[in-house]
């Protein structure tokens, strides 16, 4: 009989983040001998991802581990997959209906609040700050920023958000130009929080050119490999992320558990860093898997 195949379908192929995830998937394949592999569309377009999943269903994979570009857009195709008896596990899609389990490294609002907490501490709990999202249409980024702003409002009344949510289109150049403009329009701005992995790099570059490394605080989601040079100079003060390779491993593992008829329970240990005591909320599995990195510990995360 043919071996079990698990397809991990990511938002977009080839970028750092998902290459790191692929390491987890590959490791899982190696550890267990399953045919676990990762695919992703060439363009960041939910329709391309849906088409790719269609093809995977047609190919007859046993399980799908999906990181949806846009969870809503995948509901019908994931439903079709489940109707066809394919096990479906998702990641970064707490609102996904057509999934057996969704694995979240953390609650998005909490993660956003965590970044805000660091930003506020750095700013001394007062002053103006601006926020950036990769795109206004990204649910995850919106939740991070929602969580951050809520945290600020509740705990740091002396801080004020200036300007709108700046949209950077996941493009470092745009983040850079927007940061420049924020600095011109709001000369008193002391803090910036980014969402897309390139946001802090763009912001950091603008900060560095202005020579404001020590006068401003910049935090955001990113990867050490992208933010490193700005962390070194202090243009970026800290980043947060979760390790995609572990998330990838976890998705495959949970998929296998479902296929094997094992049950996932609240407080369970998945045997993975950050997922030692998971919280189960309906179908959503929460870990405590975020990592905060600054200039001091960035060497520990070589990706």
């Amino acid at each position, binding site marked *: 009989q043919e071996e079990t195949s698990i397809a991990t379908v990511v938002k977009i192929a*080839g970028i750092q983040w998902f290459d790191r995830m692929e390491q987890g998937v590959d490791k899982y394949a190696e550890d267990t001998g399953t045919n676990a592999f990762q695919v992703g569309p060439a363009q960041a*377009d939910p329709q391309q991802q849906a088409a790719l999943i269609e*093809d995977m269903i047609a190919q007859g994979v046993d399980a799908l581990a999906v990181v949806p570009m846009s969870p809503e857009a995948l*509901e*019908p195709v994931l439903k079709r997959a489940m109707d066809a008896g394919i096990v479906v596990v998702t990641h970064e899609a707490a609102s996904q209906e057509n999934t057996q389990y969704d694995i979240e490294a953390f609650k998005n609002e909490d993660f956003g609040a965590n970044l805000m907490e660091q930003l506020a501490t750095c700013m001394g709990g007062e002053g103006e700050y601006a926020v950036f999202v990769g*795109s*206004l249409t990204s649910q995850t980024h919106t939740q991070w920023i929602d969580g951050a702003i809520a945290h600020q409002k509740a705990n740091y009344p002396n801080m004020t958000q200036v300007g709108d949510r700046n949209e950077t289109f996941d493009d470092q150049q745009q983040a850079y130009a927007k940061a420049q403009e924020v600095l011109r329009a709001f000369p008193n701005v002391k803090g910036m929080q980014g969402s897309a992995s390139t946001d802090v790099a763009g912001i950091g570059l603008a900060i560095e050119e202005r020579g404001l490394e020590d006068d401003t605080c910049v935090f955001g989601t990113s990867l050490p490999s992208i933010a490193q040079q700005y962390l070194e100079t202090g243009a970026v003060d800290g980043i947060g992320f979760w390790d995609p390779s572990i998330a990838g491993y976890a998705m495959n593992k949970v998929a296998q558990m479902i296929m094997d008829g094992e049950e996932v329970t609240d407080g369970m240990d998945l045997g993975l860093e950050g997922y030692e005591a998971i919280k189960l909320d309906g179908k959503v599995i929460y870990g405590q898997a975020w990592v905060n990195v600054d200039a001091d510990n960035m060497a520990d995360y070589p990706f």
Partner: protein
Amino acid sequence: MSRTISSRLSSPEARLALIAVLVFVFMAVLSPDRFLSVQNLTSMAFQFPEFAILALAVTVTMLTGGIDLSVVGVSNLSAVVAAMILASIAGETAVGAGAVMWLILSMVVALSIGAVCGLFNGALVAFVGMPPILATLGSGLIFTGIAVALTGGSAVMGFPAAAAWLGNGLVLGVPVPLILFALLAAIVAFIVSRTAFGLKLIMFGANPRAARFAAINVNGLLLRVYMLSGALSAVAGMLVMSRANSAKADYGSSYLLLSILIAVLGGVNPYGGYGKVIGVVLAVLSMQFLSSGLNMLQVSNFARELIWGVLLIFVMLVNSPRAAALLRRERTT
């Protein structure tokens, strides 16, 4: 014998048909059990109609020597509005005749919005005299922008179950999107070759100045062409909405270049005056066979882009008399 084959292959469409068949056979041979499975064939039939309809929209504008870069913007805007009707007025719980009625209403609204957007484009081209490439580039940004402003950027969802039928249903085992596409392709083919409007638009594409001197209502023609393109885009938008069970301002962003690529690969002359719907259909099929086949073989999706580009240039070279002449000169000397 060889002469009859080469004369049969003298039309660009015949050569495209050959390419489509070759790609299909190639993929089928590489992985017969998977590529030829009913599962896979149905899956492909669900996938391509949405961008194939956009390619039809681009095609009709290209026949006039123009282009419509706003197709994706139009399809998202109309889908977002339709989705708002379905989600907030009809509601997720609507069932039976009520739901169907709301679905029909939302489709009518979407089509009207598509047509109005098209009218706007047509007016820019006809009355303002803007080059279509710029008019629709600008208007596309505006349409997308309106969709973003309407939704704040997030997805609109929560439709009655009936809405899913459009993109996911089967009639006698045939996917509804495929039926829809076949119908629209037939209609566009009919319009282009069998109606006064269609013939006029090709003649206009061939020589806009002569069309004016031949007392063709040039402005009315342009308005209608872009309205047709807008309405087709709206249908594609409804399909995407139904298949995604949601609508959002940035769905299908990769479809614009793809639909232009398909139209051109299908033999439509981007400078106007020539193009056949059958060519576009064959181009769509080649693209889909190639793309599903490559997914099956787990070839990187970036390679697919590369192969599409190579295919496009290859087809152009094959169809080019100049290339043939150069090759012949090469051989004789």
